[in-house]
Structures are given as structure tokens and as C-alpha cells.
């Protein structure tokens, strides 16, 4: 624990100029809640075979879900190895009005259906389209046999909290690994000011990437024949007033400017980045007004937003590694927490944008 704290302090020194939010998490945004569902058990499937389940689900509720609200949203998908439902609406209509759920890719349908059930139970006229992101946790998890229960998912939504976010091997993070080490859920936040007004940018990542090429190291748990698809998921919330073209611009700039994503350039990893602004909620009770009034930050401030988001994403990614407890998974595979010297090595790599293994 001391070691970890030390590592965090080191990171703090290196991670930029913006102060953190109170909880250093996406929940620093007013109204945003996070819930985890972790399934960590060995079961016998109906055919009598043993199955090792190391999976789960992580839900980000971007606003109190009983409200009939849309938020401006944008996304960037690179690589395309993870399923993103609701993508078409996000791309074309640029909004979300559902929880954002990250789960393993075979449970996307379950989660999708659970979101609908949740919305109907809340008497929402529209919670469609559900936004579910599927990641591949088949290295540790018997994904083919791990089926989530809808009741558990609904409970996760109900129990989601706006407090500190549990990180590491929790929720969907239970079965994930990154850079050959245990990965999972990470969170961070930054406070920045635009024209003396204070705003917050909060991030939640699910790290499940760069296992194949980026960090070849004998002691890391590296295999090239496991058929796993690598991906990094970043959910970003901002309470500054942004409109869709600005959000798209930020996601693009962010993804290419992140030091950690530079590791992507030699790999087959994919990435999904979803950014929403809580500042321009479209209230759709009685279908809403004919014309909405919005605010929009001047484009000259976008740079600040991008920098703050980049710092938060970077730290969230590192948190996802540092805070992840080791997990023993299927086929007797064990993935360890990243050791301190490896964190430093990783940071160096980020800094130098150097991908070689020398």
C-alpha cells in the first residue's frame, strides 16, 4: 500500500498543472454516478463443465436517470474491436440519454436489455438508445460462459453512487489486463477555469490494451496466442458548455495527444473515447421546446479543456494499473499488479514516446 501511494505521488509530480477534483474521479461532476457489478466465482455450467468467471459491468450514469434529459455527446472509435451500441445516434444526433455501460462483449445484449428495463421502470418515455460498450476479457474470464443477470445489472444502476469510485480489478475491470499487467477501471479528474469560471473534467477508463506488443517483458504475463482483442475505453464528462462539433474536436485532439495513446501506434489496439457535456442538458419533458437555448464556450478555450482532459485520462489510465489487485483466472492464468519499477518504465515510455523494448 505504501509502495502504491509512493507511486501515486511520483505520478502526481509528473501529471501536469491542473488541480484534481475532490474525489479525483468522474463523480466530481455534479449528478454523475458510477456503479460496479463484479462476478468473481468458479461455477459449473449446465453441461457440468467448470467455468472460471472473472467479469462484471461498470456503469456510468451521466445524470439522474429518472429525468427526461439528453446530453450532447461525441465519440471516437479507433480500431473498432469493441462493440459500441448507440453509436449511430451518438454520431448523427450527438446526444446520449442512457447510462454508459462497459461490460464484456458477450454480455452487451444483456446490458442493453437491462438499460431498457431500467428506463421503462423509471417511466422514462425514452431511454433509447442504450449505450453499451463491449470489451474482451477472455484472457482471464470464461467469457463464453459468463452471463450476467439482469436483476444484478438493475441493482448496479440503483446502487450507483456519486462518491469515490472503486478502481482496479472491479466491475468490468475484474478480467482486464493492460501492458501485460493487471488492468481495469481507473478514474481521475481535473479542475480548470475558463474566464474565471471553474469547471471540472472527470474521467473513467477501462484499460484492456497494449498486451500484445507494447510492453514485451519476460515477467509480464504475455502471450500472443490467446486470441484476445485489446482495447482502451475512456469515458469523459465535462461540465463546461460544449456543443457537438467542439466535443468531436476534443475527442480527436485528445486521443492523438495523449502520451499513453502513443503506445498505440505500433499495435493493433483499438480505442473508444466518449465525451459528454453536462452543461447543455436538453430537457425533453413534453417533447421539449421548439427551439433550445444553449451556451457554448468560445473555441479559444478548447485547448484548456483538451489539456485538462488529457491529464485526467493519463492519470486515470495509470490508476487503473496501480489500483488493480492481481487476479487468477481461467486456464490457471494469473495476472499480477504492475510493480513500481515497471510503472516508472511505463512513464518513461510515455514521456519518450518510445516503444522499443531496449
Amino acid at each position, binding site marked *: 500500500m505504501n509502495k502504491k501511494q509512493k507511486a501515486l505521488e511520483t505520478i502526481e509530480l509528473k501529471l501536469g498543472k491542473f488541480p484534481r477534483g475532490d474525489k479525483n474521479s468522474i463523480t466530481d461532476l455534479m449528478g454523475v454516478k458510477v456503479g460496479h457489478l463484479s462476478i468473481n466465482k468458479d461455477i459449473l455450467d449446465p453441461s457440468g463443465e467448470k467455468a472460471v468467471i472473472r467479469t462484471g459491468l461498470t456503469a456510468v450514469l451521466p445524470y439522474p436517470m429518472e429525468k427526461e434529459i439528453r446530453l450532447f455527446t461525441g465519440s471516437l472509435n479507433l480500431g473498432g474491436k469493441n462493440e459500441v451500441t448507440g453509436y449511430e445516434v451518438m454520431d448523427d444526433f450527438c446526444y446520449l440519454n442512457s447510462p454508459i455501460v462497459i461490460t464484456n462483449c458477450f454480455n452487451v445484449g444483456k446490458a442493453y436489455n437491462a438499460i431498457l428495463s431500467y428506463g421503462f421502470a423509471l417511466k422514462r418515455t425514452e431511454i433509447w438508445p442504450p449505450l453499451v460498450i463491449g470489451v474482451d476479457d477472455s484472457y482471464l474470464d470464461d467469457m463464453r460462459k459468463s452471463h450476467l443477470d439482469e436483476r444484478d445489472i438493475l441493482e448496479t444502476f440503483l446502487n450507483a453512487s456519486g462518491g469515490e469510485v472503486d478502481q482496479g480489478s472491479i466491475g468490468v475491470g475484474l478480467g482486464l489486463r493492460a501492458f501485460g499487467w493487471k488492468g481495469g477501471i481507473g478514474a481521475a479528474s481535473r479542475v480548470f477555469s475558463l*474566464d474565471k*469560471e471553474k469547471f471540472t473534467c472527470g474521467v473513467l477508463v477501462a484499460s484492456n490494451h497494449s498486451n500484445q506488443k507494447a510492453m514485451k517483458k519476460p515477467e509480464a504475463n504475455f502471450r500472443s496466442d490467446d486470441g484476445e482483442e485489446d482495447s482502451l475505453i475512456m469515458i469523459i464528462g465535462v461540465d463546461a458548455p460544449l*456543443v*457537438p462539433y467542439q466535443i468531436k474536436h476534443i475527442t480527436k485532439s485528445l486521443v492523438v495527444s495523449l502520451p499513453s495513446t502513443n503506445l498505440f501506434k505500433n499495435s493493433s489496439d483499438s480505442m473508444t473515447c466518449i465525451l459528454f457535456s453536462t452543461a447543455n442538458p436538453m430537457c*425533453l419533458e413534453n417533447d421539449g421546446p421548439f427551439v*433550445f437555448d444553449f*451556451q457554448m464556450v*468560445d473555441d479559444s478555450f478548447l485547448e484548456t479543456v483538451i489539456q485538462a482532459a488529457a491529464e485526467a485520462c493519463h492519470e486515470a489510465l495509470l490508476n487503473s494499473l496501480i489500483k488493480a489487485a492481481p487476479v487468477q483466472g481461467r486456464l490457471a492464468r494469473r495476472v499480477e499488479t504492475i510493480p513500481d519499477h515497471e510503472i516508472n518504465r511505463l512513464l518513461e515510455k510515455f514521456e519518450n514516446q518510445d516503444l522499443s523494448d531496449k
Partner: protein
Amino acid sequence: MKRRNFIKRTLLGFSILPSEALIENTPGRPYTKSLFTDSSQKRLREIGIKIGNLQPGPYNAITDVEGVKVGHTTIIKGGGEKAVRTGVTVIIPHGGNIYEENVFASFFNLNGWGEMTGISSIENTGRLETPVFLTGTYNVGIVYDAAVKYLARISPKMGDSDRMVAPVVAECFDDFLSDTRSRQISEKDVFRAIEKARGGAVAEGAVGGGTGMTSFGFKGGIGTSSRRVNDKYKVGVLVMANTASRNQLRIDGVPVGKEIKGFQEKSGKTKSIILIAATDAPLLPYQLKKIAKRVALGLAQTGAISQTGSGDIILAFSTANKISRKKRVSFHNIKAINDFEITPFYQATVEATQEAIINALTSAQTTVGRDGNTAYGIPLDQVEQIMKKYMRIGIRSHE
């Protein structure tokens, strides 16, 4: 016999034009009247054909969107191998200084075999900062250069303390009628189009950038139309049509292209269409992208299929939210139509696009160009007969 008379008549009409003709807009004319009252060519509504259900604005033109101005410079020089039939059309998005006060915009690349400069800025900043210029393919560099000079003149700080700007210049290939390689367009021509830009009625057909364009196997060029939405808003479309082949042509669903006899042009090549949609409804860039896509649906209703060789590029802008460069505010207050209420604007866009493309045809006079290549103005007497045969004139009433 009839055909010969037609050619004689239209050629005569053509020959009285000066060697370098400048055709201007005359504000204040009612929309039903063609600006070429002495010619046989008319706007679609003048021969009694109404597209769709919505009412057009007072001029049935893109200029019905308040503040939008259109100007043409038409360049007609010489004949034979060196014949020049080209020009430039400019759309000025609002009454003020467009560089100082930007409007939201978006574009849709239906078939990318063409050029519209300034797009990367529009895609990333969501706004239009320059007038929109329409011209022949090889003129783009010259027009771009002139546009930069014009913008530098009206905005002394541009490129100095204020951001640079990439003007929007779009092209179609007018090679069939014009010696395009000679690039006989000058800065002055561009400035003159800007100076002559007016609201009100818009000259159509073989004018401005449309001078050398052919469309559906007939003479094409500039066409425009507009629609009212909810009595409050307007959607206007202006096209530079140089696309599609004759047998594809449909007017209000009627396969006119297949039915027309005679007037076969030598070349049936397809060479692009540029479509510009404007509205005074408050729409954000992502909504304008949807409008731009509906423009493509309007194009489809004319029978065009966006062939490989046709650069079909669409731009849509809204004049309702103006983002000022001078007034440096940290937080802009803007408006946007509720997505649930946007459908009538799609209807307006599709109808206006279809009518604009057909107006470009019906307004264009027969033009003889390079190497004697002839693009015939679509024979309106035949169009009228065909539309009657399919019971589109005089029988079906429109709301």
C-alpha cells in the same frame, strides 16, 4: 424542322449577348418571372409545374433566406478551339462581414470526385467564415486567391492578429463548352461577382459559374429554389448543376429524359454538381449535416445517381446563430431547433433541391462552346407536353 427553328431561335438569343456578358440580379422581381423574359427558357413554376407541398419564399431562391446574396460574373469569349464559357458565382451568407461574424455550417461529401476548398475548417470548427464561390475546375486557384484578397481587404486583421481563413471554392468541370485549360478568369471577375451580389431574384441557367455547365444531357448551370417552413423559417438551395445523363432525368417523378425527342448533345459525360443549402432556422453543425444529407435525397429525386465521375459535394449553413470574432465573449448564447421538430426542414430541403436542379435546366439557354460543342437548352414545349401526358400540369393540385 422544329428542331432547326429552335436552334435558330436560341442561337439568335445567344448571339445578341456581348462577347463578355455580365448578368446581374435585379432585385424586386416576383419569383414567377424569369430574368430572361425575352428567351424561351423559364423557371419550372412558370410552366405550371410545382414540386412538392411546401410554399416557396417570395423569390423562390436561396436569397429568400434573409441576408443571403448571390452574384455572378459570366465570361463568354470567342469561339472554336479557344471558346471560353465560364464564370464565377458567389454566395454571401449574410449582410455583414462573414469573416467577422461566422455562421454554423456543415458539409456532406456524397461523392468526393470534386473539390470544395475550406472544408477541413468547416468540419472542425463547425462554421463558415467566407463567402462560397462556385466556378470551373481549373479556376479554383485563381478564385481562391481572389477570395483571400477580398477577405484580407474587408478584414484588415485577418492573418495578422486574427486567424487565417480558408475560403470555400467549389468546382464543376466545364470542359465540354469551355477551353478550361486557358483559365480565363481574373481576380477582377471574382471581385465583380462579389460587388454585384444582391438579395432578391437570382439569375439562373448559363450564368456565373454555371456558364459552361451541362446537366442531364442539356444545358445546365445555376439553379435555385426555396421553401417556407412554419411561416417563420426558410430553406433555400442553390446548385451549380453539371451532372447526370439524359435518360436519368425525372421531373416530379416523370421520366422526362426518356420521353424527350431530339436535341441530343454530343457528350454525355457527367461532371459534378455542387449544392449549397441555406436556412435562417437556428441549427447546429450536426443538424446542418443532416440537412446536407437531405440535399442528397433531393438530388436523387431528379434521377441523378452520383456516378463515379461526378463530384457531388454539399454544403449547408444556418444564418441564425452568428459567432462574432470581434466581440470576444467567453460563453456564446446560441439557439438550436429541437431535433423532434426538424423534419419539416428536411421536407423543405428535399423539395427545394429538386426544384433548384430542374430550374438550372429549364432556365438555361442553348450554348455553343468550345469546338462548336453545343448544349441544348431543354425544350420546354416538350417538357410541358410530357408533364401534361403524365397529368402533372393542370390536373393535380398542390397545397
